[in-house]
């Protein structure tokens, strides 16, 4: 049944952000939109507030808001890893991200692969980093659609077949057009609306709902009762002996991975200066608090007896609908409409940023590096705009043609594969000791081993033998048929294991290559580049149309 009031509120708010998206092209306008610095990085001049909303809107996505509570709803304490992950994240990246900002401003880098190209003079390594970024980002965009669709289906737009996907398609076409026109300025402006809505909804939800269900104590009791009743031993309101290591390594691995994603770096590179980034690293944990509270709504949903909606397109119960259903049941339809708009707009902001980041990667590191080396900045911008449309179309097709579960699995894999670029991107910010060919070898081995381990993981609940998650029982850990931990049910995050092997290969490879004096390529960056701040004459002018020096 269609919830008309909710739908009306949702549509009005959606119309507001559509207008904002188109007007954003004129906001803080630079000299031209025909340059990647302008279209793809908003003129590289965002201040502290805009950056806070932009990065916050980028990292804390609709999918996060829907999936993290769903994880607690289904698996208990393990799902709470999102909190430690976002607490250690900012202290961890505080210093490296500043170095990356400086070196990118000095040399005009737009993507992490640009930096790798400049640092190592290796187009193969840069291409690997670019492809990894693209492959990891695509399912992430598709996931935003999963979040958006969960909301649309809760509002009653739960059709079957292609008609069931129509509302999603409409929302995405609008998004595609204003991103094409306004570039990064569109999500930056809309992020204000998104975050204000999210904060209002969450504050109301975490104050009102616990009181309604007898306080936190009763809610945790209800969750405990549910988990005790199931046969599985892994779900519990505390960590079990078997998933503590997984909790730690997943939080750590996710934190290491996040700022390797091209879209996270897009927000950083769009900021005006180092102080803007520093202030943001202090202020962004405000979102962590919200995320933690939101996660607990998974338990509130248990206490409220929420039943997930069956997705009519796939015919299965979709636990991602539990938070929308909770809002639908417990709030008046006016406020539920606001909450749904918050989640829906929360899907569009990151989807726009991700598609821009993917378009930048394609343009800079594949189109310009291989297809058209003499492309002018104007042609680059035109190419990126078209690429952003293609990327979004691909994401929509992904959701329509393939089971959404597949994009959720791919996103899990995405974390594992993006981690494999850590040595070439993050470590390279500090030292060039690792040899470029050793980095290539480490990437190949880490990627292959990670995929192999993911293949070994079954998911008995979903009845699948392979790619059933990212938690690997140590029992299954194998290296050329050698099982170092036979019989151990303790779980660990696959990305962490693969990264360890990647680093090992990179270090050993470097020792061998250095002993043989293999050429290590030219470094276009100099030590002082990594400390340059706004106002310095070292910085390359924004939207500079002069021809780049030969790479």
């Amino acid at each position, binding site marked *: 049944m269609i919830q008309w009031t909710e739908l009306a509120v949702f549509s009005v708010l959606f119309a507001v952000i559509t207008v904002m998206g188109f007007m954003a092209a004129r906001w803080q306008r630079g000299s031209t939109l025909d340059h990647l610095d302008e279209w793809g990085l908003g003129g590289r001049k965002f201040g502290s507030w805009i950056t806070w909303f932009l990065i916050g809107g980028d990292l804390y996505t609709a999918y996060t808001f829907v999936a993290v509570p769903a994880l607690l709803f289904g698996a208990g304490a393990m799902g*709470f890893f999102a909190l430690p992950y976002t607490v250690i994240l900012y202290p961890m990246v505080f210093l490296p991200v500043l170095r990356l900002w400086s070196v990118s401003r000095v*040399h005009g880098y737009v993507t992490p692969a640009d930096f790798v190209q400049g640092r190592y003079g290796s187009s193969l390594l840069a291409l690997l980093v670019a492809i990894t970024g693209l492959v990891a980002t695509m399912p992430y965009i598709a996931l935003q659609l999963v979040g958006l669709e969960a909301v649309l289906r809760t509002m009653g737009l739960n059709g079957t077949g292609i008609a069931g996907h129509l509302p999603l398609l409409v929302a995405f076409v609008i998004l595609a057009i204003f991103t094409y026109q306004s570039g990064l300025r569109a999500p930056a402006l809309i992020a204000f609306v998104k975050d204000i809505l999210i904060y209002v909804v969450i504050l109301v939800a975490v104050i009102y709902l616990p009181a309604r269900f007898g306080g936190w*104590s*009763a809610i945790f009791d209800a969750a405990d009762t549910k988990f005790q009743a199931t046969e599985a031993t892994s779900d519990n309101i505390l960590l079990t002996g078997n998933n503590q290591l997984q909790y730690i390594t997943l939080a750590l691995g996710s934190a290491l991975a996040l700022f390797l994603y091209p879209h996270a770096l897009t927000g950083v590179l769009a900021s005006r200066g180092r102080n803007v980034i520093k202030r943001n690293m202090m202020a962004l944990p405000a979102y962590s608090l919200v995320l933690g509270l939101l996660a607990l709504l998974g338990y509130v949903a248990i206490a409220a007896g929420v039943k997930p909606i069956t997705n009519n397109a796939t015919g299965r119960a979709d636990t991602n609908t539990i938070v929308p259903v909770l809002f639908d049941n417990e709030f008046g339809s006016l406020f539920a409409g606001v909450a749904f708009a918050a989640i829906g707009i929360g899907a569009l902001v990151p989807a726009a940023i991700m598609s821009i980041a993917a378009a930048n990667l394609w343009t800079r590191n594949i189109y310009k590096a291989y297809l058209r080396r003499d492309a002018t900045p104007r042609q680059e911008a035109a190419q990126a705009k078209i690429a952003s449309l293609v990327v979004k179309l691909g994401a929509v097709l992904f959701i329509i043609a393939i089971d959404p579960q597949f994009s959720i699995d791919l996103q899990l894999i995405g974390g594992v594969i993006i981690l494999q670029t850590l040595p070439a991107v993050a470590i390279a910010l500090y*030292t060039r000791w690792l040899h470029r060919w050793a980095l290539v070898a480490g990437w190949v081995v880490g990627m292959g081993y990670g995929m192999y381990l993911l293949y070994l993981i079954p998911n008995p609940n979903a009845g699948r033998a392979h790619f059933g998650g990212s938690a690997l029982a140590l029992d299954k850990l194998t290296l050329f048929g050698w099982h170092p931990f036979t019989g151990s049910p303790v779980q660990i995050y696959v990305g962490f294991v693969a990264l360890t092997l990647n680093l090992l290969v990179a270090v050993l490879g470097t020792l061998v290559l250095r002993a043989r004096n293999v050429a290590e390529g030219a470094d276009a960056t100099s030590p*002082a580049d990594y400390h340059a701040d706004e106002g310095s004459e070292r910085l390359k002018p924004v939207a500079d149309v002069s021809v780049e020096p030969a790479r």
Partner: protein
Amino acid sequence: MSKTSRLRHDQEGLRWNAWNLLLLVPFLMLVTPWFNAIEPTLFGMPFFYWSQFAWVPVGVACVAIVYVRTRDESSPLAPGAPTDVDDLDEGAGR
């Protein structure tokens, strides 16, 4: 992560500052056995959950202190005043 490599000071232009060590403090929250317990509860919330919320302000404080204490070093390079020959070379091209 790659913090140990900071010792290669002159070669990579790394700046050591002891205040930066504070950034390691939040990692202590990864020691799950310390807080994987129901009691003591706060507002009915098990220790496992509320103690992790308590780490959020700790993380913010650590980053804030580092930010304030390292602010003066932010641009020791005066604009356009390179410190060594390599920089002169690099600066001329851009």
